[in-house]
């Protein structure tokens, strides 16, 4: 295990700035050269309700939070009550003097309490809302983390609010930081020292996906806000003007998806993003994309359903939806990135696949993925590595050369070369959601109808070549093989490490590319596996059904979770033992 592995928990009410504090702290730690993983827990409301943000830092890459925390930054009374049980032995509570830390609660626990006049410091230099800054800075001091990184984050993040605010926060941070050395030196068992490291981003999957799309040539986004997908729409909107995109917050999801069809058909790379209920509304539009062979990318960020469910919580309950949504049969590709760097690549892959196979690509994510922050080497987001492949397109010259253009020409691979509408007098054709002939015009002919379905489905053979085998981790020989997909990667990865550390050889087969399913690769990889443990965040083991349906492989055990909360390594370890 690593020498540094410290978890911080920042707790407070909705509206108290838990989110920005957590993100800022994670950013400072990342700048300080540590590996960071952070994940928030929110209520679906704007104010009140207990929110918290856990930040784990380590000198090795970290992929999940642990159940136990080392340092609790309590912005309010509730945070103390909610999280005191989560503290490890010698755990530290950091709070303003005004926060109530009931004696009875602390008594008999190996817990250390650091209460300081943080609100006063905040008010002295600025206002009480800067108490968060004070709390973070004091904490940094307690663990011996270099103040400079806190200051640099303040300078950057508050810049938009004006120099005064920056100055005030800096002053608050300095004073609070100083307290650590003066009044509370050596109170923390753990030290988190800044160190040299390659430059890293601190980023979540939503933003990484957005950035991937942007670099991958996405020109058009239409969407409708919906947690946990909104930040993709917002990221794209914020970058639209500077990066040559059109981003439309539409009147509803029906409009959003159909705008994408229109834009995709016109020939620009188009993407929409939503969550389950909004996706339901998009399914008819996607079937139109399927029928007209229009490239469209949909980012589906899952949260617990049905209906509104738990709007700000997480789930992996929409795999079946992604696989089977819409009436009729049409080819689609489903990808479920598990990390920001994979999401970044998936953005580009999705846009490429959508254009190469003129099809719908669904990128499955979830609330956990959408909000968790990972520190990732900047090299993983290398713009130079971005490849753009638009598939078979006919330019003016090509159009001049042919006699008549048939948009839906039968081809061996099912892909008919695309000429963009308006690009040339030859490119005059009809695209229709009705069954059609090679020239695009409506037909009810039975032979053509069947041949057109075959043609469209044939594109999956090509798409199949784009599919990555599942990722494998851990020793090749193992007693336990974990199966996971999408966001459960992190906790499962941690659990696997713990199994191995605890003497139970375990490995892990993780699926990012889900459809077309990598049948042969999976069979080969799982051949000889002893005990297969499926870990997924839903109530009906949807992935296990997919696996069985595609390969005939039955899992031995299912660890499911559907309480709206992400997996933790501890939860998985417990469930293994329960067997």
């Amino acid at each position: 295990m690593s020498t540094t592995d410290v978890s911080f928990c920042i707790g407070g009410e909705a509206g108290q700035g838990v989110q920005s504090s957590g993100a800022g702290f994670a950013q400072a730690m990342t700048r300080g050269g540590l590996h960071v993983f952070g994940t928030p827990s929110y209520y679906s409301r704007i104010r009140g309700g207990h929110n918290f943000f856990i930040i784990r830092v380590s000198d090795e890459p970290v992929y999940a939070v642990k159940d136990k925390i080392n340092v609790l930054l309590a912005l309010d009374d509730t945070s103390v009550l909610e999280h005191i049980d989560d503290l490890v032995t010698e755990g530290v509570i950091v709070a303003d003097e005004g926060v109530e830390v009931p004696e009875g609660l602390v008594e008999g626990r190996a817990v250390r309490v650091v209460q300081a006049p943080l609100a006063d410091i905040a008010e002295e230099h600025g206002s009480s809302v800067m108490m968060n800054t004070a709390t973070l800075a004091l904490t940094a001091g307690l663990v011996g983390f270099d103040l400079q990184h806190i200051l640099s984050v303040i300078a950057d993040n508050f810049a938009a609010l004006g120099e005064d605010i920056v100055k005030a926060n800096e002053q608050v941070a300095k004073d609070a930081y100083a307290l650590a050395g003066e009044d509370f030196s050596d109170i923390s068992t753990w030290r988190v020292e800044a160190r040299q490291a390659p430059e890293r981003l601190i980023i979540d999957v939503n933003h990484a996906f957005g950035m991937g799309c942007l670099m991958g040539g996405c020109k058009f986004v239409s969407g409708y806000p919906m947690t946990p997908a909104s930040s993709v729409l917002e990221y794209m909107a914020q970058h639209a003007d500077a990066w040559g995109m059109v981003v439309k917050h539409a009147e509803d999801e029906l409009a959003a998806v159909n705008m994408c069809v229109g834009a995709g058909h016109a020939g620009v790379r188009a993407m929409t993003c939503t969550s389950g209920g909004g996706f339901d509304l998009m399914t008819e539009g996607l079937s139109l994309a399927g029928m007209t062979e229009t490239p469209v990318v949909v980012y589906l960020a899952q949260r617990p359903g049905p209906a509104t469910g738990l709007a700000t919580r997480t789930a992996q309950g929409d795999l079946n939806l992604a696989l089977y949504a819409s009436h009729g049969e049409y080819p689609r590709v489903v990808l479920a990135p598990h990390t920001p760097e994979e999401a970044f690549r998936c953005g580009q892959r999705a846009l490429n696949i959508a254009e190469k196979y003129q099809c719908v690509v669904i990128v499955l994510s979830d609330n956990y993925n959408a909000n968790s922050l990972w520190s990732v080497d900047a090299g993983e987001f290398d713009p130079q590595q971005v490849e753009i492949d638009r598939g078979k397109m006919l330019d003016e010259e090509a159009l001049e050369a042919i006699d008549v253009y048939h948009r839906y020409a039968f081809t061996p691979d099912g892909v008919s070369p695309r000429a963009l509408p308006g690009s040339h007098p030859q490119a005059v054709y009809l695209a229709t959601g009705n069954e059609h002939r090679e020239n695009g015009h409506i037909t009810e002919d039975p032979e053509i109808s069947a041949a057109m379905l075959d043609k469209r489905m044939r594109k999956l053979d090509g798409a199949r070549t784009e599919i990555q085998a599942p990722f494998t981790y851990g020793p090749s020989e193992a007693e336990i093989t974990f199966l996971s997909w999408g966001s459960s990667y992190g906790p499962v990865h941690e659990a696997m490490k713990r199994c191995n550390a605890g003497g139970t050889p375990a490995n892990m087969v993780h699926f990012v590319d889900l459809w077309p399913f990598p049948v042969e690769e999976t069979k080969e990889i799982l051949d000889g596996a002893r005990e297969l443990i499926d870990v997924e965040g839903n109530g009906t083991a949807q992935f296990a059904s997919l696996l069985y349906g595609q390969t005939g492989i039955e899992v031995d055990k299912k660890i499911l979770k559907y309480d709206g909360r992400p997996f933790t390594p501890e939860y998985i370890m417990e469930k293994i033992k329960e067997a």
Partner: protein
Amino acid sequence: MVTVQDYAIDIPPTWCPGCGDFGIWNALKRAFAEADIAPHEVMMVTGIGCGSKMNDYMHVTGLHGLHGRPVPIATGFKLANQDMKVICVHGDGDGYGEGGNHFLHAARRNIGIVDLIENNHVYGLTKGQYSPTSPSGFETKTSPQGALEKPVSPLALAISQGATFVARGFSMDISRLASLIVEALGHRGYALIDVMQPCVTFMRAMSYEWYRERRYYVEDEDHDPGDRMAAMERALEFPGGDRIPMGIIYRTESEASYEGKLPTLQEKALVKQPLQTRPLEDYDELLREFI
């Protein structure tokens, strides 16, 4: 010079003999010719319904989409390729029923599309159910005792939401309809043309004669299409009253179109811009945001 013949295709329409859609078909082709727009310069987006098959019967760039969704499809298309004229052609059920929300928002958005509604006051293709514009009392298979709702008032709705071009035509008055379409194609922003279209099979009460007796052109009555409240009064004449105002009911050219306001679209259509807009070096900026 583009001619009507440029839009000819050897697929004969399957509309009932005498259907008003023939008139619209002719008017559209005439309008394109008059406006000198070639088939690859116009994108005709249609919905699902009898009249929505319009682009199957023409040599024109077309997208025959979903019931109720031509307006968002056209919006996405226009934003991606503003260099083309974009026209929606769809029925009253499509545009005011299933697609009502898009209509309302397109009107206030002032997106640069022409929205031509083939308003036959009935669902044709599904064989004669009442539509959002059917007169109260209209007896159909889904309203055996007569429709109970007041009909949608599309022109008034558009004007109330700030539409900048609101017109009505008649499928029988082909050249006047063609001129309306030409005007609409030249308009900056959203242009609604509600076209009275007889359906000889399922809406016999509203026959050619019926319309002919009731329609009048506002320009013949000294109407000022720049006066919004006057336009609203005209708009509210039908449905409801016994006279059907036609022509340009409301028009203002003083407002920018939605696409005209987008910084990204100032110089070039989106589809003509490179996929990666800026030099690769610039992309580091994006990374910086997260460091």
